[in-house]
């Protein structure tokens, strides 16, 4: 459509204006407010014992959930694309559920299973296992909310590459395991990487589900996002901004990784 110059510039200004008002100016302002008091202040505020603990807990949770999600995502993608089973359509429909469910409902659901009066809570408590209000609860909540990412990125790639190479390998005597490591995994690596980046970002940034199941115990189950909220509620605005800036930096790193992987993916 050849739009005349004035209309085109008008539409461009509208689109960029919307992005600026909603996204760019607010994010820019938070960075400005954060560093207004100097880098030393920010450093002090993200190196308090509580902040360091929150950072390490957040990284620990991500380090456990992301490999779990990657393994499940690969399996689910294989089942969705290669499987020939009656339950396939059901799996395909159910796998998106975590994207459509409120994180608060996720938190409540886990409380009702693993909580003090939940379905499995008392049994697990007798066995000395505590899920809710401790790290395992945070991990399960994070696995729930970021479950579909890897499967949804790997499945289309798997569909596109087809089965010929895998069949060739099988014909030449490779066993299933060898075929997977040598043929299938390398072929889907960029899709897998993209899914891993997305679920890492979600794992680090999850707030709603974690705030229900973690109990928000300072120095024990307080993740970075919970720390941001607590500082804000305690009128420590500058501290909240500093912790936010740390999370925003991780988000920018995610964006960078996404566009790099995206470029690689369209090359191959």
């Amino acid at each position: 459509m050849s739009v005349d110059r004035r209309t085109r510039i008008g539409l461009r200004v509208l689109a960029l204006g919307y992005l600026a008002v909603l996204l760019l100016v607010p994010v820019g302002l938070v960075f400005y407010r954060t560093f207004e008091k100097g880098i030393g202040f920010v450093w002090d505020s993200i190196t308090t014992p509580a902040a360091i603990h929150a950072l390490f807990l957040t990284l620990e949770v991500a380090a456990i959930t992301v490999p779990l999600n990657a393994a499940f995502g690969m399996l689910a993608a294989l089942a969705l694309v290669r499987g020939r089973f009656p339950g396939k359509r059901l799996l395909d429909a159910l796998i998106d559920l975590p994207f459509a469910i409120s994180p608060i409902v996720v938190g409540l659901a886990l409380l009702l299973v693993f909580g003090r009066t939940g379905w499995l809570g008392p049994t697990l408590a007798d066995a000395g296992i505590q899920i809710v209000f401790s790290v395992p609860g945070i991990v399960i909540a994070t696995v729930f909310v970021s479950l579909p990412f890897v499967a949804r990125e790997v499945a289309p790639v798997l569909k596109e590459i087809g089965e010929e190479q895998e069949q060739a390998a099988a014909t030449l005597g490779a066993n299933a395991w060898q075929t997977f490591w040598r043929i299938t995994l390398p072929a889907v690596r960029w899709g897998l990487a993209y899914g891993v980046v997305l679920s890492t970002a979600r794992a680090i940034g999850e707030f709603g589900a974690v705030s229900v199941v973690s109990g928000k115990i300072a120095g024990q189950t307080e993740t970075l996002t919970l720390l941001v909220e607590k500082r804000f509620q305690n009128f420590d605005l500058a501290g909240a901004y500093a912790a936010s800036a740390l999370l925003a930096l991780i988000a920018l790193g995610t964006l960078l990784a996404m566009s790099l992987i995206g470029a690689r993916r369209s090359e191959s």
Partner: protein
Amino acid sequence: MSIALPIGRRRPGAGVPSGGLAMGASMLWLSLIVLLPLAAVVARSLDGGVDSFWHAVSARQAVSALRFTLLISLATAAINAVAGTLIAWVLVRDRFPGKRVVNAVIDLPFALPTIVAGLTLLALYGPNSPIGVDVALTKLAVLLALLFVTLPFVIRSVQPVLLELDRDMEEAAASLGASPGVIFTRVILPSLIPAILSGAALAFARAVGEFGSVVLISGNVPFDTQVASVFVYKQIESDNPGGAAAVSVVLLALSLVVLVAIRWVGAWGSRARTQSAAVKSEARQNER
């Protein structure tokens, strides 16, 4: 010399770790992590019978939170449908310096933690606003937060369709004297509708359940700015899991409806694309 290949013994796909193992393992994991907990919510909401479920969801504050959530999510989806299509069009058809950066920044709301998104909007549109605009604790603030977190959905769903769109039809319409406005509404828009709808539906689903970005900026005023997810959170905090579960079941039902709608629109979109491709290839054959 001949090499005996064991072809006859293998079905297609054999030797590939797919089959029952992958299916069974992923179903088991999904059931354990997702389905069992959701079943617990439904069971808990019905603990006191259907009456107590109905009592919980028809409580005045619950109804008000659900109604507000539904309306504001519809508004969010509608605004996204328009603004998202506009931004996608500008990103595909326009050329300007810095376009690649703008394109990359679109995904920021997906990467940024929701609590940071709320804090970010509060910095510009809250009580300490440098431009003197304080909308905190109003419905408008909730709308802003929802628009922020749902920004990428429509753009990312429309962009690829717009990129692949055949421009022959637009040029034909232009050569027949159609104005740009007519070309957009009669030629471009019909092909984009499935993508716009599925993007808007995803935005709606996200808005209905959103918590992190809303919790700080909404002020959680009952009968005014309290959304359903914050209402559920407050019920959990005040040790009323039955009430929390009942409203959660309504939210779950809404999620299911949206998921089904998205699949339906997706199937329609791919059917429309195949049809238009078939029409085009037929037209090309007729030309020859």
